[in-house]
């Protein structure tokens, strides 16, 4: 099942380095540490909304993981809980 995902706000802050990423949510005022992959996912959403399928494809290009789909779902869940991303309501 493919869902639409987007950032909760256009001005989510994100800085990424090889060993980790940091995100900032201006509304909650919270700063979050993310793994490089979760950060990469957030970075993709910063460029525009994506479906879960699109995310899998784009991430799969350089993240070789056996259970990528499950990992992506986990990251989306964590990023949701941090109010960084949300499902797009159509």
């Amino acid at each position, binding site marked *: 099942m493919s869902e639409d995902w987007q950032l909760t706000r256009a001005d989510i802050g994100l800085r990424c380095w090889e060993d980790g990423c940091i995100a900032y949510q*201006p*509304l*909650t*005022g919270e700063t979050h540490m993310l793994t490089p992959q979760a950060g990469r996912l957030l970075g993709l959403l910063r460029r525009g909304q994506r479906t879960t399928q699109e995310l899998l494809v784009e991430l799969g290009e350089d993240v070789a993981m056996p259970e990528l789909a499950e990992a992506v779902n986990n990251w989306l869940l964590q990023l949701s809980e941090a109010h960084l991303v949300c499902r797009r309501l159509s």
Partner: protein
Amino acid sequence: MAHSDLVVTLLREPGNAAKLTANEWDVLVRQARHADVMGQLYARLSEAFQLDNVPEAARQHFETAWNLSHRHRLAVHWELLGIADTLALLDIPVVLLKGAAYYAANRMAAKGRLFTDVDILVPKSALDSVEQVFIRNGWVPTHLNAYDQRYYRKWMHELPPMQHARRGTLIDIHHTLLPPTTGVRCDAATLIASAQPLVGETELGVFKVLAPSDMVLHSATHLFYGEFDRALRELVDLDQLIRELGTEPGFWPEIIARARQLDLLNPLHHAVRYTHLLLDTPIPTEILNKPLDPKMGAVRQRVLDALFLRAFRPNHMSCNDTATLLARWLSYVRSHWLRMPIHLLVPHLLYKGVIAPRKKQA
């Protein structure tokens, strides 16, 4: 120009910016900071295209306050979302009051403002369930000593403030505008019934705000029947509300009728008089010419003028001549007199002034 008049002078006429000396800017910033109107002043100066007339060093302070107010807006929004979640479980009307209401309803009065607590008005019958649902969702009652609990619950018109255990936000839960002890019959149920939904807002849809007349009346009541430590800031709020809402057709007949109905002609009388006198708020001439409060004689008016016009000065050293201090103290006493039966008043003031600090040191 007299130092005490600097903040008010600039608020009513931002064009005066060009005339101030460096020393006057110095005093102005200190007064404005003390009165908590820095962000509002920035907004006024900016709208009047006067920012270039503000010396760089002073402008920096105003700009910082303005930027801070933006951060506050985000914080208030986030808080309101959390509170909305908590209250959604109950099926009761919840009316936002004061700063949070100005923000949620996008009123001019929210510009440049800093927000501290959130104030809500709920039906008295729902008070217990509201308190319970807050406690279940991470809010903790404050003012746990028996005296303060009684003060808030029995004599005032609110629960003791609740504080979010993790975020530290304070929420004041009111069930009426004025304590029943004042003898002023102000019908909260009417206010709640007339409350309006937020226009266009979906995330905060559980909240309502007071109808325009009621919003102005509440602001006036809070100012003139309240404690005077934020007097000028609240007068600025009132001025902004009246400027924005006063132009709606039918506003003035409606607010006068409403004030009569709610027995709030007295604070409305003061509101129109002092916003006009100090901040040049546009009030229809016929209203200024005839006192709204029928009990207001000429002598009484003069006495109150002497009291209030001084008490509105920023609470700052440059304004603290003896007469001002006395006036401020008298206003404070008067406001407490209005709200509590006199035989209860003195012990309360004594407790706050003398007993409480020593207790804290123990």
